């Protein structure tokens, strides 16, 4: 065939092809996404990695939020950090004070997403695993440091809770299996916090995987029996499932691992990218959400999450607060910005027993002299200036925090405690140079040297230190910067510093978590403060379940702390939330689960 013919053939073919296009070519199949239901994307900075957030390592906000949305609870924190009840899941009541007995009853509407009712077995699993009563070995790791499974009869639940540890006896289970009564061996002040969320991972799933019992009711019974009879062979398997099976970063092949009791169910997890929750069709409770699908996208970079919000890829974000991020958010037209207090507060603690300027030993045991030096130093701390210069740009409504133990959002208790403790009256906004000079003169101490420890790599604390240093030096102190990036390790080594500047993060509104900060020998009492009156009050607090009396005790404790010049609180960390105007009903609370607290009330337009 000659070339000409070939070209002619090609030409004909091309022409006919063009002609053929007149016949409609097939258009892509219109498989329109059947998912017409509303959906919303929100942003979080860390990826989910464990569905069991009751283990030591699973207990992180990144896990808590999805678990909160996919599991119901008897009570939750509302906007004012008041405990709000959810009777559609169950109720709790204090049956007696001495001994403390708490009865938890699950409602008939409390159901796991596979249809199994939530029962006493679920509460027993959560208590038993965190109580430490059933652990026969200290750890599940072998000598090589590998996560080895518990073998034979070794039982180790990698979970612990000081409150649950006080429940020593096996609880009473009602005949219908819907309620369970726990008896505390000692009164526990925060029993209500424990009772708010009585169920963890589903007991029937754990029992099925550990013991092979497929019928849910039989599985629950097998789990209860194993704990009741301390059947270590069975408990060993149960603890393995409890510790290990729920740790996953992508959608598990076994869907039973995602069984939850809440309004949503986790349906899709892409490692380090996103987690999708869809409405749970078997949910019978009262927190029915209006949004069909919620996707939590992982954006570790605050700037990226803000631009994603502007681009409509996410509708809610809570980036790490900086002045630039806030300015950028406020410059966007279709975004609402919330600025408020977060859950961590900044404070200065003084060291009482290191031979330093705040230790009576330095002045031959003259406690009054040491007290005056402490008071003088605290008077110089420019609290108001720190808030105005560093925090107000991020949270215009920021105020001084004046309580050692209560968060400002817990309004009633905070008001009562701050009215009694005298921090505001004594120190006000700080920078009281004249008062400090007078106190130093009274004490007869000239030019004491104070070594201040804080996180060296934290810019905000560097700025705070600058302000503190200026102010204290004006009053005649010499302030040394002993900051370190290993400040956390060095806190215990009180011989290296005299005052520390750092934050404590509140985990709940419970009162027990602050006890260790102030009692003699308490593990967070780094400055070795010791006062018999405070110890007595804290001992009473540990066994006081009456909230009014708790507040009274805390007020007296704080008064004593302030009088002894233990240290001073400065501010609550600011938190910035950017919310697209397409969503309504989103707000944030300073405690976990932050802006997810009322997810069922979210609406999207």
């Amino acid at each position, binding site marked *: 065939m000659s070339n000409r013919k*070939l070209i002619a053939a*090609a030409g004909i*073919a*091309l022409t006919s*092809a*063009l002609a*053929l296009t007149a016949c409609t*070519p097939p*258009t*892509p*199949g219109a*498989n*329109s*996404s059947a*998912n017409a239901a*509303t*959906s919303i*994307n929100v942003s979080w900075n860390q990826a989910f*990695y464990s569905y069991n957030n009751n283990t*030591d*390592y699973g207990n992180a906000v990144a896990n808590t939020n999805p678990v909160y949305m996919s599991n119901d609870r008897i009570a939750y924190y509302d906007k004012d950090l008041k405990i709000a009840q959810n009777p559609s899941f169950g109720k709790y009541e204090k049956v007696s004070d001495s001994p403390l007995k708490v009865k938890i009853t699950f409602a008939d509407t409390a159901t796991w997403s596979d249809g199994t009712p939530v029962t006493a077995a679920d509460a027993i699993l959560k208590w038993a695993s965190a109580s430490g009563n059933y652990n026969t070995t*200290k*750890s599940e790791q072998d000598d090589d*440091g590998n*996560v080895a499974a518990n073998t034979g009869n070794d039982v180790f639940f990698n979970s612990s*809770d*000081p409150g649950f540890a006080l429940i020593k006896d096996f609880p009473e289970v009602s005949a219908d299996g819907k309620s369970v009564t726990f008896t505390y061996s000692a009164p526990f002040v925060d029993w209500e916090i424990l009772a708010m969320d009585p169920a963890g991972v589903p007991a029937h799933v754990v029992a099925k995987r550990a013991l092979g019992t497929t019928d849910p009711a039989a599985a629950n019974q097998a789990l209860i029996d194993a704990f009741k009879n301390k059947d270590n062979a069975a408990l060993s398997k149960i603890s393995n499932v409890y510790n*290990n099976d729920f*740790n996953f*970063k*992508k959608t598990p092949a076994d869907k039973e691992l995602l069984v939850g009791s809440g309004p949503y169910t986790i349906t*899709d997890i*892409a*490692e*380090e*990218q996103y987690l*999708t929750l869809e409405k749970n069709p078997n949910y019978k409770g009262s927190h029915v959400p209006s949004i069909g699908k919620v*996707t939590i*996208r*992982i*954006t*570790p*970079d605050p*700037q*990226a999450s803000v*631009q994603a919000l*502007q681009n409509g*890829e996410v509708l809610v974000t809570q980036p790490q607060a900086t002045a630039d991020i806030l300015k950028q958010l406020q410059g966007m037209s279709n975004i609402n910005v919330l600025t408020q207090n977060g859950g961590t507060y900044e404070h200065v603690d003084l060291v009482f027993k290191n031979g330093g300027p705040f230790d009576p030993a330095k002045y031959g045991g003259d406690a009054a002299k040491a007290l005056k030096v402490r008071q003088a130093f605290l008077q110089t701390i420019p609290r108001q200036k720190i808030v105005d210069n560093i925090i107000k740009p991020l949270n215009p409504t920021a105020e001084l925090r004046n309580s050692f133990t209560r968060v400002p959002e817990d309004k009633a208790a905070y008001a009562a405690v701050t009215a009694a403790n005298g921090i505001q009256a004594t120190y006000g906004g700080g920078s009281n140079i004249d008062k400090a000079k007078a106190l130093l003169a009274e004490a007869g101490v000239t030019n004491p040297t104070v070594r201040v420890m804080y996180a060296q790599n934290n810019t905000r604390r560097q700025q705070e230190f600058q302000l503190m240093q200026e102010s204290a030096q004006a009053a005649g102190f010499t302030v040394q910067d002993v900051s370190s990036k*290993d400040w956390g*390790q060095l806190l215990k080594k009180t011989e290296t510093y005299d005052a520390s500047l*750092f*934050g*404590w*993060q509140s*985990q709940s509104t419970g009162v*027990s*978590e*602050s006890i260790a*900060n102030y009692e003699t020998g308490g593990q*967070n009492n780094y400055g070795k403060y010791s006062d018999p009156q405070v110890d007595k009050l804290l001992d009473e607090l540990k066994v006081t379940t009456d909230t009014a009396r708790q507040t009274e005790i805390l007020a007296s404790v704080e008064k004593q702390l302030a009088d002894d010049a233990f240290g001073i609180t400065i501010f609550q960390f600011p938190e910035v939330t950017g919310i697209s105007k397409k969503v309504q009903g989103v707000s944030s609370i300073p405690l976990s689960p932050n802006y997810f607290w009322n997810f069922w009330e979210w609406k999207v337009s």
Partner: protein
Amino acid sequence: MARFLARRLGLAVGILLVLSFAMYGLLDIALDPLADLRENPAPNREEMIANRVRLLNLDLPWYQRYFLWLSHFVRGDFGLAWKTMQPVGAIVQSAVATSIQLIFAATIISILTGVTIGLISALRQYTTFDYVITFISFLLYSLPVFWVAVLLKQFFAIGANDYIANPSINWVAVLIASVVSGLFWAGALGGRRRKKLIVFASAFGLTLVLLAALLLSGWVSHPQIGLVGIVIGSLAAALAVTALFAGMNNRRALYSALTAAAVGAISWWPLQWLFVLVPMNWGWMIGLLALAMVICAGIGWLYGGPDRNVSMRGAMFVGLFSSVLVFLDRVLQTWPEYYNTSEINGRPIATLGAQTPGLNADFWMAQLDRATHLMLPTIALVLISFATYTRYERGAMLEVLNQDYIRTARAKGLSERVVIVRHALRNALMPLASVVPVDFITLIGGAVITETIFSWAGMGRLFIDSMTNQEVDPVMFYIMLTGALAMIANLVADFLYAVIDPRIRVNA
């Protein structure tokens, strides 16, 4: 040869051992696995610390932990990311895949554009064009990626999405773009003033007409290629390929390229049916591309002649190009549906991640989704890395052009095209053999900053996250992997050099 290989591999293992020992020691100083617990006010803190010490053997001195780690590592147990209790082996798989996905396209594009521009720059040495290219490549090279990324997101994602939703034509920008295009082509093609003017005018006019047509027809809101685009594109490719690699005088090559273009365009129609009737995947795509290559090679072979290989190569180039066009055309056909899904909601260009969560997509739409997510990070990476290739290739080409054999070729009376393409270009590409393997291997190490800013969960992110989580094992895995790959890359580069340059022997 075998001895050389054994020596190099033995050396590599030794270096890795020293590297791992030194890094383990440094990491022990840098990381504090107990950091989070120290700030934890929980009453059971001492117990948690004790648990963790036992879990990570923190009671042992670091060199003992190193040997423990090493003994596990060589047995294929890469340790534990203890914060999330995930075995390292499991988490790195998806991270490596993500990194390759992110950087593969960017590396290919930077090599192609960088080499081409560098080449032209060398041919137009010391002209304004050369100076401008030099200036721009140094400018881009010195840009910080985090800043480029933020700007790209602002203009090419947020701005572009706003524009697509509500297009209004900015004629000033169109004119500026057309002038730039005219200047570029006039500079690149060079020649006398008259030729430059003609090139400038035609490039300017063509760009203006093309942009205006695209903007006025609403193409931006509904991008497509269509049969018309495929026909025009394939024919243009046929002409360009022939002009560059065979010369228009080689009629057989011209005809075989044109035939390949025609066949490519014709196959569009039956392929549309195939794409609808059979669910596609990458296996199919590779198979179809291979088929197209075979057909094109056949076309070139049939045209025959003394220079059969040139015809075959030209036809295959054109076939590759029109296959890509057909693929892109089909991907773009899903645009209207993609644009309107509730997950996209009219904001197609993404600033975050590798895919849209929960998108109910078939093969084609998934590719479109991938493209909208890859666009910004790819541009960011290309802008920054293309400068290196430009400078490298410019230098290599200049060196070759000054060689005696080039002068000989010119003296023989060969056309400038043959001198450049056949004699200079091939030798100028040789130094790339030592750069490209190393660059490709570093793909797997990831791009730390780019991945973080665009929220891609690749190796770079894994590294940074593990560092902030105070996890030693994933960081060690990262170091061992990148270390080993770097050595392999160098070895490959040495071999490649020996293969393409007969003057070099590996066992010398």
